[in-house]
């Protein structure tokens, strides 16, 4: 598996990251080195090995569905980069 600038730009667009040409080149080098490095995992036959999702056995805890107010609108908007009329402000979505 070898990635090129085109692959990297596609991945960046999936990840919603702007990349400069210089960054794209650097990602190609770095990601190809990482893919070479992780290729060693293919030495291990895992055809009969389950995938580990939780390192510690745990049940799914259930609780009553209770409405809570962790904080009010004013606090919720405290960290908003832009807010107006008690709402988050974003660029126009529909023309």
């Amino acid at each position, binding site marked *: 598996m070898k990635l090129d600038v085109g692959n990297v730009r596609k991945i960046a667009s999936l990840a*919603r990251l*702007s990349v400069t040409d210089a960054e794209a080149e650097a990602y190609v080098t770095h990601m190809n080195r990482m893919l070479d490095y992780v290729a060693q995992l293919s030495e291990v036959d895992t055809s009969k090995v389950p995938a580990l999702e939780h390192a510690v056995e745990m049940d799914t805890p259930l609780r009553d569905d209770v409405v809570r107010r962790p904080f009010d609108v004013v606090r*919720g908007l405290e*960290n908003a980069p832009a807010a107006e009329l008690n709402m988050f402000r974003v660029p126009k*979505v529909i023309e």
Partner: protein
Amino acid sequence: MSADLCHLTIDELAKLLREKKVSAPEILEAHLKRVQEHDGKIGAFLHVNAEQALAQAKKAQELLDGGRGVTALTGIPVGIKDVIVMDGTPSTAASRMLEKFNGTFDATVVTKLKHAGAVPFGKLNMDEFAMGSSTENSAYKKTTNPWDTGCVPGGSSGGSAAAVAAGFAPVTIGSDTGGSIRQPAAFCGVAGLKPTYGRVSRFGVIAFASSLDQLGPFGRTVKDAAHLLQFMSGYDGMDSTSVDRPVPDYAAAHDRGVKGLRIGIPKEYFIDGMDADVEKAVRAAITELEKQGAKTVPVSLPHTKYAVATYYLVATAEASSNLARYDGVRFGYRAKDPKDLADLYIRSRGEGFGPEVKRRIMLGTFCLSAGYYDAYYRKAQQLRWLIRQDFLDAFRSCDVIASPVTPSAAFRFGEKSADPIQMYLSDIFTISCNLAGICGLSVPCGFTGKGLPVGLQVLAPHFAEELLIQTGGAYERATDWHRQFPKL
């Protein structure tokens, strides 16, 4: 008196408080003064909240005066890694993305510490979003190693480790996803404990890799770390991965001794190319434990060599999902004059995240993308199963495992930052513990010829933190590494 207060253990400070020889606000003031005088050189703190902390110290003093509700931590200042959200306090995870983010609630650990009467008083530097092994990835400042300011303090909890070593706080909290507590603890010559996954609530912790992240304590002694762990641990309804199990008396385990304890020595953790001084110190520490009645047994963890590769697939995949929340809409950095919503997302993220964070998001996005999931992410989860199985098998013939924390002592600034893979490999002995979900401890066990601290790593099965404290405690009582302080 003031400077002396900054080198005492929690038990020693608690005794002075009980005997009314010092007050909680005086203890806090002594530490604030030391931070003011010396942190210019160390750079451990991103933010000090003196005013809030003083109010909390006064509350602690009222508890002490009333003699009710007093715990081992009442009146004890605690430094908090900046990955943990505190109400009314900047909580940035050392990222430009969260430069203006102020906590609007307390993380569960902070709430628990406050209930115990502890005094959280500042936010500690780290690698951005806990991604790194040297704290060089902080978007804000460099943190130096108090033992040699030309060297890194380790990471990602570099500020937490350096603050304890420098006497800025008796104890601090860090987080450990692949070694981010144990490695900086080893580099800075302090004790650091990574609890079992699920032992400590992650509610209010800025997420990196959710199946690996765990909070834990730093202290100059294992006993101090045990005291802090006591009040951090336990089930939390706000974190469905926290585990509902009783919390034992951790500090009581400290003096149990190691007579008859079986210590596994994994051959895969004593490798060619290891620093000779590190190996010598670690082997001497193991010999000391044998002198106290522990027995060593050889064990094997055959999948160790795959741990770093497995980790960088699992951790980056989870990071790419977790960090999707930073979109410039509700909180965090927003790019100037976006032309539309897509442009707002793309440029806010491109400009707000630092280079290492973006590298990891890119790799994680790739290995979760259509057509590559089975070859990378699922394969890594299968290796993870094998790595956990290695430990379950090893723990049939031993109670704990002992090893070095890192193959070498603290490295110099810039030494590894040019090559991310070299940096990743410095975590080779700590990463498996997170993948397996077990608990681990770093205890100071000597110095290299250049005067840099060395750490002994002790690993124990799921929820066997008492064995870590017991082993570390026995070693600590026989040695005085924890009583040596760097000159600032």
